């Protein structure tokens, strides 16, 4: 059991960080090139060279590509009309069509985003090349109504702070660590006390002079310590395997974990008090944890949730932890920066444990 508890955070960190990934790669692309000009070929080549797309089909028939998409063999269709190059040179304007399979909205959205970037790059390159050759006005393509920039216009450069390469793992691992600790501790606590009730040992304990606070402390302290061990193991795994940045103070991370864990302990204990069987406790904990995890900001930003959901999230302990982990590990926030978060969690811990102690009764 103990071994399992130490392996679990490591395994989950690896699995979730690699697999639960928003980067979409190897999108299946169908190219319908009606132009067959150097320009059209250059555009198609740019797609396949990007790494995001894999040309699965090259055809001259739109129907054929549509059919491939209907059969789910192709995610995106790039259709280049005839006279693409000619229009681009002469009229400074040409159109290409991009069709995405939106059965998977995330994939379609991201694919379209990548595609537009590629087309924009193509624009710039093509214009530069053309200008170098002739001293005429720059051509520009536009796709989907967007106007391409002439080389002389202002270009936007951007950089991603705190995660310069927009590395998905850097972003996920700290959050996942928080989530795992919360998950395991919440479950273990909820199952622990109801288990004693199920096998009857609680009956034997209740007739002893052991006091309520002694019993509860005895139950929760081991899990509290365990959470700190799990955090250590998880952080080590994150550092060794993903080289996640640890800009902030690690002492702060442990102080926070030590304050946060009681939230989950109290939460689990509270549910355990109202459960008659381990099955019931599992079901109840799972119900809440699923909501907590999906709404904690690990997968979708809390800020983009509807207002009522954000209010509801005040009660979501994991949300605080995920936010904290990212702020401290990636951004190097110090205690002053996370003060509000810290005291929210502290209040939460006190409140939920108060409830748990109040609801635990040694006698009926």
């Amino acid at each position, binding site marked *: 059991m103990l071994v399992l508890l130490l392996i679990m955070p490591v395994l989950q960190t690896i699995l979730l960080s690699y697999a639960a990934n928003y980067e979409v790669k190897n999108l299946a692309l169908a190219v319908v090139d009606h132009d067959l000009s150097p320009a059209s070929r250059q555009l198609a080549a740019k797609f396949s060279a990007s790494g995001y797309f894999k040309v699965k089909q090259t055809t001259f028939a739109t129907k054929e590509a549509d059919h491939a998409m209907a059969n789910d063999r192709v995610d995106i269709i790039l259709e280049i009309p005839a006279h693409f190059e000619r229009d681009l040179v002469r009229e400074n304007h040409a159109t290409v069509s991009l069709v995405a399979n939106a059965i998977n909205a995330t994939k379609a959205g991201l694919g379209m985003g990548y595609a537009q970037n590629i087309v924009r790059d193509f624009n710039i390159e093509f214009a530069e090349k053309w200008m170098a050759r002739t001293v005429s006005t720059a051509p520009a393509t536009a796709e989907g109504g967007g106007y391409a920039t002439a080389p002389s216009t202002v270009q936007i450069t951007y950089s991603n702070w705190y995660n310069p390469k927009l590395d998905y793992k850097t972003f996920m691992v700290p959050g996942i660590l928080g989530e795992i600790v919360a998950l395991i501790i919440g479950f273990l606590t909820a199952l622990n006390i109801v288990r004693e009730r199920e*096998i*009857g040992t609680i*009956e*034997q304990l209740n007739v002893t*002079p052991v006091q309520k606070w002694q019993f509860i402390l005895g139950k929760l302290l081991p899990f509290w310590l365990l959470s700190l061990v799990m955090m250590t193991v998880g952080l080590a795994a994150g550092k060794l395997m993903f080289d996640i940045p640890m800009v902030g103070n690690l002492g702060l991370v442990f102080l926070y974990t030590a304050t946060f864990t009681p939230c989950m302990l109290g939460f689990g204990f509270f549910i355990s008090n109202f459960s008659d069987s381990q099955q019931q406790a599992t079901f109840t904990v799972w119900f809440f944890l699923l909501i907590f995890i999906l709404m904690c900001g690990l997968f979708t930003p809390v800020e983009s949730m509807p207002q009522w959901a954000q209010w509801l999230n005040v009660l979501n302990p994991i949300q605080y932890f995920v936010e904290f982990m990212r702020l401290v590990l990636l951004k190097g926030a110090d205690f002053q920066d996370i003060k509000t978060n810290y005291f929210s969690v502290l209040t939460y811990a006190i409140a939920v444990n108060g409830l748990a102690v109040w609801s635990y009764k*040694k006698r*009926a």
Partner: protein
Amino acid sequence: MSNKIEAKILSKSYGKVQAIKNINLSVNEGEIFGLIGPDGAGKTTLFRILTSLLLPDSGSATVAGLDVVKDYKQLRTAIGYMPGRFSLYQDLTVEENLEFFASVFGTSIRENYDLIAPIYAQIEPFKDRRAGALSGGMKQKLALSCALIHKPKVLFLDEPGTGVDPVSRKEFWDMLRNLRDQGLTILVSTPYMDEAELCDRVALMQNGEIMAVDTPQGITAGFQQPLFAARSDNMYQLIKDLRAFEGAADCYAFGEYAHLKLNTGVGAGQTVADIRKFLDSRNHRNVEVKSAKPTVEDCFIELMKN
């Protein structure tokens, strides 16, 4: 401070079901007192109230002079409780369990070894074995050791006979008598009528009420009607036939025999020979008939009918 148990008009309901109704009970110091009754009679509820695990709806009770509601903290150190279900830590060893319960009561194995020695000595060779891997009889000895480790004045045993082989059961009762002789008051509940005869006094419980309190001998002495035991190859038919026997008050299965109870009036004159003749006339084979001594079970069945 006496080791008595006193209960006055105790009642407890679970929703609409009244588990025990106006129970009055008085258990003397240093006796083995049996609560006898079928499942659902309210034995466990009464136990849980007396061990301070359950609050009564009305009425009051004292154990060893301590009120079960007000003085529950002191009470818990004065009593030993062995629940019906084995409820020690299965994943701890024998010794660890005992050590744990000793430390919970602020004592140690060595301090109270004398009291548990006769019992614990039998399982000590297995002290490194996990409690979950013990046999039923050994589990029971361990549970009893754990319940005794803090030298309680009153011992509560909830259905200790369940799930234990006859030999272990006999040993167990020997131990109880031994403890009683050391001055412990023991309240034991059981659905087994044969265990009733091993108690000093018993209370017969049914549907949350106590029907009779007496010594086992006193209870059986109250049984006035003639009683016979009979058997043949076809027991089912035998019971059906005997119910039609002249003067029969009742006939029920009793172990491998059927017990036939006769009315004091009409049936008083009937003899073993009369019954045998009656059964032969009904074509029963291998008939055996004898007069029987009433047991607590016979009395219980009698009381249940009223």
